[in-house]
């Protein structure tokens, strides 16, 4: 029994990583109608940056906000330089550009860091296990769950209760009307894109310890990030969280109890959901 709970905790922690990395993808798809297959590359970039910072002697916990800001800024720069020109282009052109970006960034990582797996030094505060209510749980998993939950709450508050959030919701609903009432949609898009990229970077930095990091990271996790968006529905924060947690937990449970089923269950789940609800469980039509 305690075994099952430990596995579920593992799945939830994994789900939180998926949520952090995918929520920006969901918002860019819902808000800007942009299919960003390079989103996983932001997570990868965050991972490498964290590795570099920690190697340089910076404490892990201090590296996290720096990663968030740096990858966020990089996201804004890429949005301004390239992606903003593609909002009104076809899905195919968006796919080509973002696959190209993902390939180039993966190759760049390979050139700079080599093809090997990276490791990161996490502080002793976060390593080892802790006993909660008689259950032994890895501290880092608890930390991930806490980070994910805090981010989810912050994002929901940001979107539901602030002027920024109201503007985004207005622009998602009707871009032209939002522009008509003086919302600077262009700037809003850039900031939102940066926020999503920064969160993916944060997710990537947190992933190194649990999932490892190599130049193939961006494409390896692309499918499951897209699945989070597909199942959660484009543009929905709560949907992304639910989908990420369900996928993470289901994946962990099946990997443990039915390893032969492997990826089948997850991909089968995706196809089943899309058959029943083509716009996701909670989503509006993308």
């Amino acid at each position, binding site marked *: 029994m305690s075994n099952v709970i430990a596995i579920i905790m593992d799945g939830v922690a994994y789900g939180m990583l998926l949520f952090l990395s995918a929520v920006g993808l969901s918002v860019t*798809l819902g808000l800007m109608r942009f299919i960003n297959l390079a989103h996983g590359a932001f997570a990868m970039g965050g991972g490498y940056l964290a590795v570099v910072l920690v190697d340089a002697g910076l404490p892990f916990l201090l590296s996290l906000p720096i990663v968030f800001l740096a990858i966020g800024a990089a996201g804004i720069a890429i949005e301004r330089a390239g992606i903003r020109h593609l909002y009104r282009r076809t899905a195919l052109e968006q796919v080509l550009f973002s696959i190209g970006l993902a390939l180039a960034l993966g190759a760049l990582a390979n050139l700079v860091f080599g093809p090997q797996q990276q490791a990161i030094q996490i502080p002793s505060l976060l390593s080892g296990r802790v006993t909660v209510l008689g259950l032994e749980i890895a501290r880092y998993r608890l930390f991930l769950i806490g980070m994910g939950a805090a981010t989810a709450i912050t994002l929901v508050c940001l979107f539901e209760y602030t002027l920024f959030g109201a503007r985004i919701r207005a622009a998602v609903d009707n871009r032209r009307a939002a522009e008509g009432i003086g919302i600077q949609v262009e700037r809003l898009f850039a900031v939102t894109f940066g926020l999503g990229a920064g969160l993916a970077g944060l997710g990537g930095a947190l992933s190194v310890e649990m999932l490892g990091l190599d130049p193939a990271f961006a494409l390896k996790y692309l499918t499951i990030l897209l*699945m989070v968006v597909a199942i959660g529905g484009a543009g929905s924060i709560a949907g992304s969280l639910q989908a990420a947690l369900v996928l993470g937990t289901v994946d962990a449970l099946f990997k443990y109890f039915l390893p032969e089923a492997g990826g089948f269950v997850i991909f089968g789940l995706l196809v089943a959901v899309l058959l029943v609800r083509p716009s996701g469980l909670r989503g509006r039509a993308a």
Partner: protein
Amino acid sequence: MTLLKDSGLAVGPGMRLPISGATTLLFAALIASGFLFPNHFALATQILVLMIFALSYDLLQGHAGIVSLGHAVFLGLGAYSSAILARAGLTDPLLGLAVGAAVPALIALVLSPIVVRGNDFTRLLVTLGVASLVYEAANRLRDLTGGADGLSDFEVAPLLGLFAFDFEGRTGFIYALATFFLVYLALWRVTNSPFGMALRGIRENARRMPAIGSPVARHLAVAYLLSGAVAGIAGALLAQTSRFASLDMLGFERSAEIVMVVTLGGNGHLAGVGIGAAAFGVVKDALSTVSPRYWQLGLGIVLMASVFLARGGIGGIIERLSRRRQP
């Protein structure tokens, strides 16, 4: 652009052969390549396979307007089907080609209801999800597919019972070349048939099509099926000429690569796609042996730039050139 270009050669009433300038050049270059580079039959054969695969995907993306991130599934299924058939003792290459086309067509038929419905994003996801599923399956079914090692312990009987597949790959090259010509002509016919017209209509205005009585979903399903069958032919050819079928033939990288090849070649332009695939194959072979990392970096940058610079791809350039010549 009219529906049917009159750049063909008339050979009797109602019959035309697709002999435009670009096509002639492409065909001549392919035949010449066999004489010019007799030591590179294996590479030339691989490039022909890539060209057939690209033509198959062009039918789906360029003509039917469906973007897929999992087209390599059909290439891989074709390769595995013919290899498994050969292992079972049925080594005739043409039989292998037929089965290599039939199996992917059947799978496409099963998948078409979920691929055809939905918007661009759900299509990307479904094709990607299905591709991951098939990849996992091929990886797990070791007894059938050889898992990560692939299949290489099979023979291929002489072509038509006459021409043995030689070590240099001459027979394989001629076999691939002949298959390419036939596929090219067949797809030219498909794209200029009433069905091909309907596909253009769907790309031009999908909203109008049902209002003129068009069974849009069925048209797209047929395009998906045909495209899957031709990709399977490319896969079977690849397995037979290289005596190898492996997981990477149905992997994501092959799928992503073919999206790029077709787009750079020019969506919906058969000659452009053929030339684009050939050029891609040559450049990839030259650069990726020098440095796969720089190749990937360069490819990524070219892709990003192509969205802004080379709209219409090579096919678009051919169109503009031929229009300038005959205003």
